């Protein structure tokens, strides 16, 4: 690599001065994402406003051998948008146009910097919405959602981002611009959209994304049930699943996260509950009414201390506000926290929660649980104080034990946050060297110089390798 001043000359032919950030104060906000324990200083941050500028930047990086990281709003919880030390950050927030919204075809074509919620907002006048709803949906961008196959509370019925992307135009890491997928729900040929979504930025940068929109359900019924123990709430989930109902969402919050959410947004959750289960039904009015009847029967037989039904949209929103604000609310209980998002088979939820409780006590660290129970997707928030020597390391060790437990129970190390930089070391616990070899070959087929989001996903290679910062 050449020295900085002369190296950046090439970027100056692409961008006006004010859209290349190089000063320490300008770079600081880009040094980490929502995984705050990791920081790295990029050489520069560029702020493209057009697809052509992104393409030119990627080609320049390829020519010069400079690693780059594409970044949306930096909400990644796995360090997915952590810069590469001395690399380039391509900040895509200005590429935020909704290029087309076609209600009759039920699609939206958007640039990567469009915030998730903006799509639903734009679609709302037509009675449509974009289904994936990560908790950070007000700020997180579609580009980031595509890179990490983001989920949300409503995955249970509608799936994750991958289930809602129809077509992608992308610039691969060596500068070639490719298009794949189409506007139809159906396709022929290998599912290329399927492999691109969730590739964590290792193939290149999505420039234009065609999303599938859904008609907004006619009716919602949101039920909140309080329990004396977390395990009881987990048991109730198993019963609802077994009953043959398919709710839009099924979420659990434990005592610690309830207290935090209550303090932060006053969601009106029951004060004395050890756990709260939120179940949301959605669909046609008469169907939802019939399902509600069955659901209440199941819930009442699961030993709740209290059952509430949101009586209007305002109450429903209040329930969800508390749930979606839970991470940041729990953050207020502690100077620092780590969030894991391992998955366990749904029938092993109770076992997993007991084990987390045991580990929490063993490590002397508080763990708050707020999670997508219907999917078996845990979200233990491990509270620690980074100023206390050794506490971060202890928190990381505890997180590692939780991940191993998930793998051991037949689950996954991540349901929706991705591997990023945080869980690199654990990928090899889920996959064999042969599995990883194919994934690496795929990566190199798109990015022979391994520039795009270098250092993410893959564990550092056993032999003196090229991957890893």
């Amino acid at each position: 690599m050449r020295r900085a001043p002369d190296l950046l000359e090439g970027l100056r032919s692409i961008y006006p001065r004010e859209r290349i950030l190089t000063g320490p104060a300008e770079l600081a906000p880009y040094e980490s994402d929502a995984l705050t324990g990791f920081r790295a200083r990029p050489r520069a941050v560029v702020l493209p406003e057009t697809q052509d500028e992104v393409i030119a930047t990627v080609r320049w990086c390829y020519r010069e051998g400079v690693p780059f990281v594409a970044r949306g709003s930096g909400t990644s919880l796995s360090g997915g948008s952590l810069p590469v030390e001395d690399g380039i950050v391509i900040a895509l927030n200005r590429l935020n146009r909704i290029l087309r919204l076609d209600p009759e075809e039920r699609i939206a074509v958007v640039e990567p910097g469009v915030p998730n919620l903006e799509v639903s907002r734009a679609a709302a006048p037509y009675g449509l919405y974009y289904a994936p709803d990560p908790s950070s949906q007000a700020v997180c961008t579609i580009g980031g959602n595509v890179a990490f196959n983001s989920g949300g509370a409503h995955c249970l019925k509608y799936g994750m981002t991958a289930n809602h992307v129809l077509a992608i135009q992308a610039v691969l890491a060596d500068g070639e611009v490719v298009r794949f997928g189409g506007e139809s729900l159906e396709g022929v040929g290998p599912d290329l959209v399927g492999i691109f979504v969730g590739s964590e930025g290792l193939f290149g940068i999505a420039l234009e994304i065609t999303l599938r929109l859904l008609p907004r359900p006619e009716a919602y019924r949101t039920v909140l049930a309080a329990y004396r123990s977390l395990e009881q709430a987990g048991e109730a989930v198993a019963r609802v699943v077994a009953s043959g109902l398919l709710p839009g969402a099924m979420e659990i919050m434990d005592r610690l996260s309830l207290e935090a959410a209550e303090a932060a947004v006053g969601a009106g959750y029951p004060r004395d509950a050890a756990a709260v289960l939120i179940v949301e039904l959605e669909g046609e009015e008469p169907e939802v009414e019939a399902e509600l009847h069955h659901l209440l029967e199941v819930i009442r037989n699961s030993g709740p201390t209290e059952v509430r039904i949101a009586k209007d949209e305002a109450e429903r929103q209040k329930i969800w506000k508390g749930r979606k604000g839970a991470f940041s609310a729990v953050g207020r209980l502690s100077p620092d926290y780590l969030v894991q998002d391992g998955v366990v088979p749904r029938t092993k939820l109770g076992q997993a929660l007991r084990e987390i409780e045991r580990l929490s006590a063993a490590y002397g660290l508080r763990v708050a649980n707020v999670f997508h129970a219907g999917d078996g997707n845990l979200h233990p928030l491990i509270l620690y104080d980074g100023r206390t020597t050794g506490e971060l390391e202890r928190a990381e060790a505890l997180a590692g034990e939780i991940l191993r437990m998930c793998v051991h129970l037949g689950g996954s190390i991540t349901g929706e946050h991705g591997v990023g930089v945080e869980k690199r070391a654990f990928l090899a616990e889920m996959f064999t060297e042969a599995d990883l070899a194919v994934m690496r070959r795929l990566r190199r087929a798109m990015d022979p110089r391994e520039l795009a989001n270098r250092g993410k996903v893959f564990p550092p290679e056993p032999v003196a390798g090229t991957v890893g910062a």
Partner: protein
Amino acid sequence: MSPVGELVRPSTVPEIQEIVRERRSLLPRGGGTKPALSTPASETTVLDLSQFSGVLEYDPAEFTFTALAATPVREVERMLGAHGQFLPFDPPLAASGATLGGTVASGLSGPRRYRYGGVRDFVLGVRFVDGTGAVVRGGGRVVKNAAGFDLPKLMVGSLGQLGVLVELTFKVFPAPRAHATIRGVRARFEEALRDLLRLNTSGFDLEAVDLEPPGVLWVRLGGQEESLEVRTKRLMAFLEGPVEVLRGEEEQALWEGAREFSWVPAGHALVKVPVTPRRLAALETRLARAGAPRRYSVGGNCAWVAWPLDLALLHRTLVELGLAGLCVLGPPGRRMLGEWEGEAFARRVKQALDPQGKFGVG
């Protein structure tokens, strides 16, 4: 070497690995229900996977199962049905003997794909032998998983060109307790299409919306027994015009028939054409003029076209309309028709998974 007309029937994974390493050109086959996709060109060895059949793991409470790739879809459906569960994407040709692996490799979904998503949305995990002979696992056994690249989805529609599928994991859903189907007859295609578009953007939870040209609409409702009557009435009011309601066995049989393509005349190929509702009219004009038997499924997102065996004219028509096609039933040879976007990206994927081109090209 791959002797002409050779067919091998391995019964263990190491045998598959050895075959992949030794042969030059291979075509995996499951149930052979889609001859246009499973009949080899000369000097290609057919890898008959029929020994790889059987469910490995099914816990009804988990709503997932893992099975060997050549397990017949029917067998799985019976197993799930006993627990009130189902594969919501209506895998086509199940009654004819289609297998899980063949369904994934061909990327085919049936009418209820409209409501629940396609085969791509239900496959969670895969084990396959890649072009280098290595056994590779992707995805997992849980319903939500973002670890590693999504190889299970990549296999959907891959036509056996990226690897030999050995084992698959799917998620399943609880089956609706009751069904009803509304048949609406419109005098002209345009009227039926208008109703289809209205249905697509309505808030109704419809399981399937099919259009049988020129003007017959089939709309399927599924859900709780006690709400079905009210929902059917609401839908009839919304549709206006002459409609009739089908229930019970007759209703089931109707959709079973659609999944089996029982309407395709003998001596015809069957081609799947992904389309969008708005582009349907142009396609319909061309197909009506050619007199091709056809049916539009998935709310106007999938056209099934029966065509006399020479596909050259259909290919040209699709090119002109900017559409792609996949020949499913019919003679081997031409599998992909029309225009397909994604070749540049697909070539790179192929290079990574099958660097020596053992599983054919294009």
